């Protein structure tokens, strides 16, 4: 196991190097640069050139890349062109907030999506299945921002039960902190829960038709036990895969939720920085997201072995 993990981590090095080059190239290929963003449309070419020189943007791209990556690997993420603060401090002040929101949303998505999907599969083709399928289809089709705004209007403006947005520090007010998590977490979880429910339904339905399930039933094992020990366990592998992907998406892709709920997360920082062409921030966040996805993949692979003993990490499927 340990050697497998070390081997996997060593494989990350070329992936991270290649992705850093790719991201640097893509970010620099965007029209306009930080000098355009800083100087604005009414600046003369001389002023734009002076701003470009001030931030070293006039140097050849390979030189800029080597300068950035050599500092990055030493933990120096540079200074933001726009915020004029240390990029590492800026990014790492947002990551815990994004992680908090993503994990809470994922927990909610699992708590809602997994039982709903299971229920729909068990009630296959009946009214319960129809209700779950319709509800999940509606949830997937509902834009996050719409649900978020409606939730704010209902629970914060009309009922005045929950804060309308922002993250309240747990040290300032633990109760308000918990309350401030509810609306953004539920809104972010909605889409994930619906996807998970549909995925679970499909995986469980497929497993329910397997011979070993029929055999278990024939042996007189209770339906609940069949579902828990034989069906769910075998259906869990694809569900874990989709859950891992969902967590990654919730961490870096919750931009709309972060905007609607004024949540200080890394997703909105990424979008703002792309808009401002704040290269150092964008590149650092993207590389960190790649790293996070690699880590998540490893965790998911390890979980496979935990769920299904037939799967051996680092080797082939056992007999």
């Amino acid at each position: 196991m340990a050697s497998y993990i070390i081997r996997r981590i060593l494989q990350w090095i070329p992936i991270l190097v290649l992705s850093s080059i790719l991201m640097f190239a893509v970010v620099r290929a965007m029209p306009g640069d930080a000098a355009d963003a800083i100087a604005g449309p009414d600046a003369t070419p001389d002023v734009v050139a002076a701003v470009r020189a001030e931030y070293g943007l006039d140097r050849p791209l390979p030189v800029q890349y080597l300068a950035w990556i050599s500092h990055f690997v030493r933990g120096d993420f540079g200074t933001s062109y726009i915020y004029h603060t240390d990029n590492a401090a800026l990014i790492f002040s947002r990551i815990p907030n994004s992680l908090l929101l993503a994990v809470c949303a994922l927990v909610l998505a699992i708590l809602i999506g997994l039982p709903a999907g299971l229920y729909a599969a068990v009630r296959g083709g009946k009214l319960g299945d129809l209700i779950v399928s319709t509800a999940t289809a509606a949830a997937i089709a509902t834009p996050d921002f719409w649900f978020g705004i409606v939730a704010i209007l209902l629970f914060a403006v009309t009922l005045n039960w929950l804060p309308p947005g922002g993250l309240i520090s747990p040290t300032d007010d633990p109760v308000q902190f918990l309350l401030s998590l509810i609306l953004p977490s539920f809104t972010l979880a909605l889409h994930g829960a619906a996807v998970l429910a549909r995925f679970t339904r499909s995986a469980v339905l497929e497993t329910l038709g397997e011979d070993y399930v029929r055999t278990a039933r024939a042996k007189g094992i209770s339906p609940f036990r069949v579902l828990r020990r034989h069906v769910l366990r075998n259906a869990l592998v694809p569900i874990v895969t989709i859950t891992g992907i969902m967590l990654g998406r919730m961490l870096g892709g919750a931009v709309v939720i972060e905007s609607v709920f004024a949540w200080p997360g890394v997703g909105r920082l990424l979008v703002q920085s792309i808009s401002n062409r704040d290269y150092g921030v964008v590149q650092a966040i993207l590389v960190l997201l790649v790293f996070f996805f690699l880590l998540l993949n490893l965790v998911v692979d390890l979980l496979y072995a935990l769920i299904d003993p037939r799967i051996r990490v680092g080797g082939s499927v056992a007999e």
Partner: protein
Amino acid sequence: MSLSRTLKRGLLVAGCAVALGFAATPSITLAASDLLRIGLQADLSSFDPTRLNTGTGVTTNLLYNSLIYLDAGGTPHPELAKSWSFSPDGRTLTLNLVDGVTFHDGRKMTSKDVAYSLEYAGTPAVGANILPFTKLIQQVDTPNDDTVVLHVNGSQRVIYDLLDLLYVIDSQHPKDIFTSGNGTGPYKLVSFDPGQSAEFVLYDKYWGQKPAIKRVEIKELPDAQSALAQLRAGAVDFLPTITRENAAQLAGSRFKTGIASADALGFDVGINVDKPPFDKPEVRKAVSLALDRKRIAAEIGGPGSIVKCLPWTELDKADSAGLEDSCPYDPAQAKALIAKAGATGATVEILSSGQSAPEIGTLAQVMQSSLAQIGLNARITDLAGTAFVAQFRKSQFQLTSHSYGRASRSAQALLMSAVVFWAKGNVMGVKSQSYEDDVNLVVNSPTDTPETAAAWKRIDQFMLSDNWVLPLATNPIRWASSPKLSGVAFSLDGAPNFDGAVLN
């Protein structure tokens, strides 16, 4: 589902929240009568007052003071300069500074700080948008700590605009300007989370009349609808910028709305005179005739929008007397001109920044529809802010739906600062030695003379005949607040000032 299971689930959610919730984050504190909470839709990126964009504009009057301030009538009033006088030839301006002004770190402000502020704004690499105005200052003398002597070579109107926009910064710690906000203003920065929030408290050694509000919190609320919901929910007291749609939604409610500046921003159509078919003056004239300015003011600018034919403010209209109706809406004549130029059926491109500014995107669509009526097929290329700027600066467009700033400033200031009106290096490709000479004359003459009056008339005529830029209407800056907030004042550019604000 049993109650115990529900409880377990609730505890799991709460547990996960607590376990991960120790990130250091700014807080939303409950409202108090001495706490003003502002929701900002723009990016709260730095406290450099030379940026003067929507994001920094809200914090500028909290943290800094300018030397003078201009009222709505353009009359200068004392601020850090308690008095001033021009020499008889208008080439030397002596400013006497208020005594006992200190920066938030306790250091006394001196004339050296004023000189440094001018030098900083005039440094090209800073990218200050008042840079063109600083070029009118040839030399700065500081004979003593309380006196600044400016040797100027330009219009007094622009000099006053500069002094109104030049916020005095700390010359001792120039590198901290972006994040420390160490100014002489009524509020002192307490905390700053870049791109998220900032907190300010009343500066106890403020030199002027101390405001009634003791504490100000600003947090970014990038989504317009969410910002409105936060105002309705009582989470914020003031929104410095709202859309006209948001203002309409609040109409009839208990919340206040208003116009911070009716004319700080202006809509225009830019026409690249180097790109066919717009190299033909009659095609440019046809575009002007095809645009219904009154409708654009009503439908895009909304209530309070002022129809424009020439870009000048009410204060500068004297020189344009008789030209008010020089931009008629006449699509039939426009169509005839297009046909005469042989351009009927031509495909043209409109460059727009509608991804960043929805109203600019709407203007592009109105243009598209208007041009279709006169026989031109228009395509819209809609870009986000920086991508638009890059393409715009390189003149990579035929037509552009655009918005210019400084529209509420003096005509000379507008000619110097808004790229679409520049006499030299204009991205629309317009070149005219006569126009350049006239612009130089009105910008560099200390006061109005018969020569400058004649030059203004020629400038007006040239704009109306050459049609490289078509001012259309102003784009009012709107605000909204809770009913308990009153007394907020606004600069000519629409930036709020809370010195006289009260929360009841």
